[in-house]
């Protein structure tokens, strides 16, 4: 005779739970935020170098021209665009603009697509 199992399991398989478009925008907002926070020291370093001397300024420009840096720059551009657009969406919803379900779904799609669009544009310009 099996013992009564007092431990209550939970259903929490994230692969089996639906994530609506707003949830995708939201996790993207969080991930992009963390990426930007990690990039900040690099950004400050580049700012400092670009102001220190003419040689350092040229060094920064040359660095931003190399392939691996361009790749990282694109990631940062996505992070920046997504975080900015999703942030604006949040600020508008804070003042009750676009907080109905239909409007929120639409704005979520727009944010997701626009940030990818910016990356493609940026990628096109960098190449």
């Amino acid at each position, binding site marked *: 005779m099996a013992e009564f199992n007092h431990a209550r399991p939970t259903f929490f398989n994230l692969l089996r739970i639906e994530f609506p478009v707003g949830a995708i925008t939201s996790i993207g907002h*969080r991930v992009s*935020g*963390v990426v*930007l*926070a990690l990039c*900040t*020291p690099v950004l*400050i370093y580049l*700012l*400092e170098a*670009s*102001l220190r*001397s*003419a040689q350092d*300024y*040229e060094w920064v420009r040359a660095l931003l021209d190399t392939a691996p840096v361009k790749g990282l720059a694109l990631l940062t551009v996505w992070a920046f665009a997504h975080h*900015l657009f999703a*942030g*604006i969406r949040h*600020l508008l919803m*804070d003042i009750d603009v676009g907080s109905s379900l239909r409007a929120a779904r639409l704005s979520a799609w727009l944010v997701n697509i626009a940030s990818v669009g910016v990356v493609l544009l940026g990628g096109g310009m960098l190449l």
Partner: protein
Amino acid sequence: MRGTPSGLRAWLLQRLTAVYMIAFVIFLLAHFATDASKSYELWRSWMMHPEASIATFLFFTALLLHAWVGIRDVVLDYLQPMIVRLPVLAMAGFSLLAMEAWVARILLLSP
């Protein structure tokens, strides 16, 4: 801790710093779209101008405060055990303070 009004304060700080940063970025993008200073001298003289350097310093201050609220939110959500939470928050706080000091040196204190 129900006494501390840190819920609303943190949220308001996050929103207000965001608004300032959006305004700054729009201004910056507009400036560089119309007047992309290609040379070192032009870049430096523009950035070290009192208005630009102070506005940029404020931008970084807003950025670091905004990042603090964001990082704190992530930690409060995912890192519950105090033994991990406290060191992570402390490290994040100190790193942000260090970056603030660094930016102050670059923009306000250099000749």
